[in-house]
């Protein structure tokens, strides 16, 4: 039934009386007052929003707001201080709930950062090593008539019996079998197998490799090869007894050339340092032990010497 309307339902046989008009008037006035108040408040809020928005941070209303905020600040500070223990308690409980996931996340981050630190350290070392390669290539000690093909070591010997590494340059880069391989420290070995993108380098410590060498100080000749029974020690073989070789002498490649033939190794590449010299009455040659300059266990990058006159 509609509001405040009287009716007289005949079926029920009852009389329905209209609510007294005084109450109706009172309700109307109340509704009007209500609408006026709410409308006024909404209008006031809109005016405040407009003024606040238009005046910006240095307008007249901001001063009012600032004064109001200053007046209310003690209450806020009081509530803040009173509620601080409860806030701490809440944060503590909340941290308990999130502690496990946080720990997992942090553990992952630590692992990630550790990996990055290791990679950075490797990158730093590699950077220094490559810089040395670059300096060597551009320096006066680099052999003439050759260009340097820098290559990363991508595979290492699988066992103790294989003294070789695989490098990331091949025939596509002009590398051929029997090309010399070195580092700024000294001679590494010789290319023994080539594919278009990779090459296998037989290390100086391999038993099959022999390198003509001379004592840089005395020019005493000999052949550097792997010393049996050891892993990374070399010997200077075929040094006659009348030749003078002393401990501490530096050995370099001999690099001979005759007619159309030449040594596989260019002249003057450092090999190692003499660490012991001995001889017996029965032996024809001196026994000269050599420690190579190159750390064959820590090869990261090498230089392949490619003759300048070779087409790529």
């Amino acid at each position: 039934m509609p509001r405040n309307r009287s009716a007289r339902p005949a079926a029920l046989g009852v009389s329905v009386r209209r609510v007294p008009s005084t109450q109706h008037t009172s309700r109307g006035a109340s509704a009007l007052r209500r609408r006026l108040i709410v409308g006024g408040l909404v209008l006031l809020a809109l005016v405040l929003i407009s003024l606040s928005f238009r005046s910006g941070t240095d307008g007249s209303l901001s001063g009012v707001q600032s004064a109001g905020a200053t007046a209310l600040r003690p209450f806020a500070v009081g509530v803040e201080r009173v509620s601080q223990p409860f806030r701490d308690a809440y944060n503590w409980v909340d941290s308990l709930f999130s502690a496990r996931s946080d720990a997992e996340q942090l553990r992952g981050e630590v692992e990630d950062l550790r990996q990055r630190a290791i990679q950075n350290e490797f990158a730093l070392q590699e950077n220094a090593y490559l810089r040395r390669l670059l300096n060597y290539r551009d320096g006066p000690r680099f052999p003439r008539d050759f260009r340097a093909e820098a290559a990363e070591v991508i595979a290492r010997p699988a066992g103790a019996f294989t003294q070789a590494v695989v490098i990331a340059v091949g025939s596509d880069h002009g590398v051929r079998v029997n090309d010399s391989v070195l580092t700024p420290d000294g001679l590494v070995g010789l290319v023994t197998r080539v594919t278009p993108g990779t090459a296998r380098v037989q290390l100086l410590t391999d038993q099959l490799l022999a390198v003509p060498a001379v004592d840089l100080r005395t020019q005493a000749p000999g052949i550097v090869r792997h010393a049996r029974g050891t892993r990374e020690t070399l010997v200077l073989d075929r040094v006659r007894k009348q030749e003078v070789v002393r401990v501490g002498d530096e050995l370099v490649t001999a690099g001979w050339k005759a007619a159309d033939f030449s040594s596989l190794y260019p002249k003057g590449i450092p090999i190692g340092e003499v660490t012991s010299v001995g001889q017996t009455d029965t032996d024809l040659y001196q026994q000269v032990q050599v420690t190579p300059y190159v750390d064959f266990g820590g090869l990261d990058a090498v230089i392949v010497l490619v003759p300048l006159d070779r087409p790529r």
Partner: protein
Amino acid sequence: MSVGASLRASGVVFAAAVFQAALFSSIVVHGGAPDVLLIVVISLGLLRGSVAGAVFGFAGGLVVDLLTLDTLGLTSLILTLAGFWAGRYAETTARGRRLPVLLAVGVMTVLASVAGLALHYMLGEDVVARQALLTALVPTLLLNLLLALPIHALVRAIVGERPGFEPAGEVELVV
């Protein structure tokens, strides 16, 4: 509304506004924070009528805007309408319903969030609708519903209910 009830209601609203600005807004659970002031204003609207709801909503919003240095009138507008709507709801259709406060708080939480988003957007502020309506709204709604009954009971105990609260559309039958 008597002077005593008005003073008590003012105290409740003021305390709720200060606590809301200083404490409850920082209690963030899964992206949402409880809106205690909204619940108090709705309670006052339900208990004391639409005019009281609107007036106290306006005042509480003003206190919050002053404390937070937000755009003045923004929270006032939303809480004015919320308190008024709650009061009208109580004056018209809430009678006889079970737990009207839960329905009022639930509806007004959603509407207040949407209205707040719209107002901020209209004022050219950076608002992220996804954050406001999806991430924060659900936890806020749940927290408000959780707090609605105890806060309503507290407000009722402090302020009391308006006597002779009559629903509109009454007819008198004379046999």
